[in-house]
């Protein structure tokens, strides 16, 4: 029977797509939250993701050198330290490169962000070298779906971890945004920054917080994708950032559920392209999708159409 084989192939592609897509979603949230509040594209966000990956590799290598071989300890430590360091990066980037420029021409913070992105990329290149760095697989194996003897799809344990971590992170974020006091302040800032400030909320702190949250989520994605692919270099941030931004726009920039939806959709589209047509053109398809979405529905799938005020 030829039919199930192609079905399992499709399932495999969907699983791969959802895995990568959920990490895109994690990065995209950083773009979408910042955009929702101060209306700028944090171009350096992709580099924060890359730094997250590097810190995870460094932590894991350090633990291995000290003789700690327990995989759960390594992963938890990698998450914790990587999130802490990237949070500091998110905060500092906002403080140094964006805060002095707030309230002016829209292009000026964007150009500053591009400068920041180039700076961070080259900082890591100088400090860590530009070669690919590979990590031995820490988590192998998985669950087979379909017949054991024939062609079947595999859901690896690493993929399951990625799904689980993404789900937990998203739930925590949603709870934080919808229930906590600071989360309410975030939503108020997204609604009207000036008014919120007038009502006595420290908007500078809220903006700094969104950068920190975005950076921490990028670190989660960095750790997960770093372990999933097993290879990093200083240039991975550029493409990942671009993809995540595409995901954010796809779902409707400013909307957190939109970012998740966009990320998953983009991941699946890419996996299908790679699986059925060619791996080389998956990036072309991703950007083509971005252009098409902007052409037919500029506000994205879940976004609200933006009204320009005089």
């Amino acid at each position, binding site marked *: 029977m030829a039919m199930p084989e192609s079905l399992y192939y499709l399932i495999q592609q969907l699983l791969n797509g959802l895995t990568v897509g959920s990490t895109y979603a994690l990065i995209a949230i950083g773009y979408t939250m910042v955009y929702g509040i101060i209306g*700028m*594209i944090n171009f350096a966000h992709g580099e924060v993701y890359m730094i997250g990956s*590097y*810190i995870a*590799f*460094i932590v894991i*290598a*350090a633990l291995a*050198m000290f003789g700690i071989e327990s995989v759960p300890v390594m992963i938890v430590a990698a998450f914790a*330290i990587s999130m*802490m*360091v990237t949070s*500091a990066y998110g905060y500092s980037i906002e403080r*140094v*490169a964006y805060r*002095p*420029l707030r309230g*002016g021409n*829209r*292009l*000026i913070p*964007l*150009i*500053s962000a*591009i*400068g*920041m992105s*180039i*700076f*961070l*990329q*080259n*900082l890591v*290149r*100088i*400090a*860590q*070298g530009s*070669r690919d*760095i*590979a*990590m*031995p697989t820490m988590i192998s194996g998985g669950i087979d779906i379909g017949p054991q003897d024939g062609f079947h799809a595999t859901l690896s344990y690493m993929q399951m971890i990625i799904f689980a971590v993404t789900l937990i992170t998203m739930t925590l974020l949603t709870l934080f945004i919808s229930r906590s006091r600071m989360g309410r302040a975030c939503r108020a800032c997204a609604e009207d920054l000036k008014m919120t400030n007038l009502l006595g909320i420290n908007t500078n702190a809220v903006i700094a917080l969104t950068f920190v949250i975005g950076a921490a989520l990028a670190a989660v994605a960095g750790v997960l994708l770093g372990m999933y692919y097993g290879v990093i270099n200083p240039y991975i941030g550029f493409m990942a950032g*671009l993809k995540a*931004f*595409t995901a954010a*726009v796809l779902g409707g920039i400013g909307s957190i559920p939109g970012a998740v939806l966009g990320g998953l959709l983009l991941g699946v589209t890419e996996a299908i392209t790679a699986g059925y047509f060619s791996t*080389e*053109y998956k*990036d*072309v398809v991703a*950007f*083509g999708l*971005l*252009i098409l979405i*902007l*052409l037919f529905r*500029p506000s994205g799938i879940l976004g609200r159409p933006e009204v*320009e005020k*005089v």
Partner: protein
Amino acid sequence: MIRSNLKPAVISAVVVAILTGLLLGVRLDQQGTTLGLVGAGPDVYWKIAAAATFLFFFNLFRDQLGALWKGLPGLPKAPAKLTSLGDKPALRRLFWCFMIAAAILWPFLSNRGGTDLGTLVLIYVMLGLGLNIVVGLAGLLDLGYVGFYAVGAYGYALMAMYFDVGFWTGLIIAGCLAALFGFLLGFPVLRLRGDYLAIVTLGFGEIIRILLNNMTWLTNGPNGIGGIPKPTLFGLEFSRRASEGMQTFHEFVGISYNSEHRVIFLYLLALLLVLITLFVINRLLRMPIGRAWEALREDEIACRALGINPTAVKLGAFTIGASFAGFAGCFFAARQGFISPESFTFIESAIILAIVVLGGMGSQIGVILAAIIMTILPEMAREFDEYRMLLFGLMMVLMMIWRPQGLLPMSRPHMELRT
């Protein structure tokens, strides 16, 4: 006063330590399949400690420093002289004549390396002027400008390879091709707000590069295209021996062959292209479309109310800007004789954008100055090669903070109400 600053001072020092400690303090070291760590060496630790200490004391005494800073005389106003220059047309014309004369004489006064560098500067001037239309005048942030540059370069290279097209025909075709691409891309995306446009153009630039890399059957992929014919002067070649049915320049003029002739010819050709670009842009600026570009940048809603079609005007800027990139690309391909997708990465777009921003958006003399600085500084600072891009990124950020209007901002005729 110092006590109230103690907390931010300590925090900033700690943040510096967190930022740099792991990322710069240790280095991942790959030995076969095992991943190890090596320390980065004492000089790096000293630098980190110095940075943390500096920030600590800076934040501790920031109020006193702020008072000191205010006491210092302000920066000299660079544009003041040039503004008055712009007021007097005669002086201004004289200034431009002097500039052009100096540019023409340059290859005869300098050596071969200097002329080559001059040609490179002129290519960047042309790209900067083209992007200046889009970013500086029309206020559209285009991060994929290098895509049009690539279209121009590959357009000529492929035409020459498959159809035996000469440089001058190729120049026109490359310009038109790049303009067509600009039109096709601009058509859907120019209805969008500024920052969306930035990302879409960035994606476009990447798509072009990926396509050039992967369409091996057409473009030879990452290996690039070589043997692109050099420009000719009214059918005269600049080589030692003429190819079939052609004549060389040195035979025609009756002097002995010298390889420097070609370098000088390329330089003068680039200069000619730059002058044409400058002329065309200056004419355009005085036409209704040029006025509409600037008006649109300042206030889109007011423009709509006055009956200007924003999409059409933007599309005009985008297409014309792209065509200049196409010309520059064609010249680049002809000068190098070899092109590959490596030459058309995002960083190239960022450099061209930095030229426009550094020069002062909209200001043509500023763009020229910035192109000279951005091309010559890296050449002079070869020993800092490793740190070049790092400093470049840092400079972009600092420039936006301290002088977002650029080195020589464009001066416009304006009136102020005095009370």
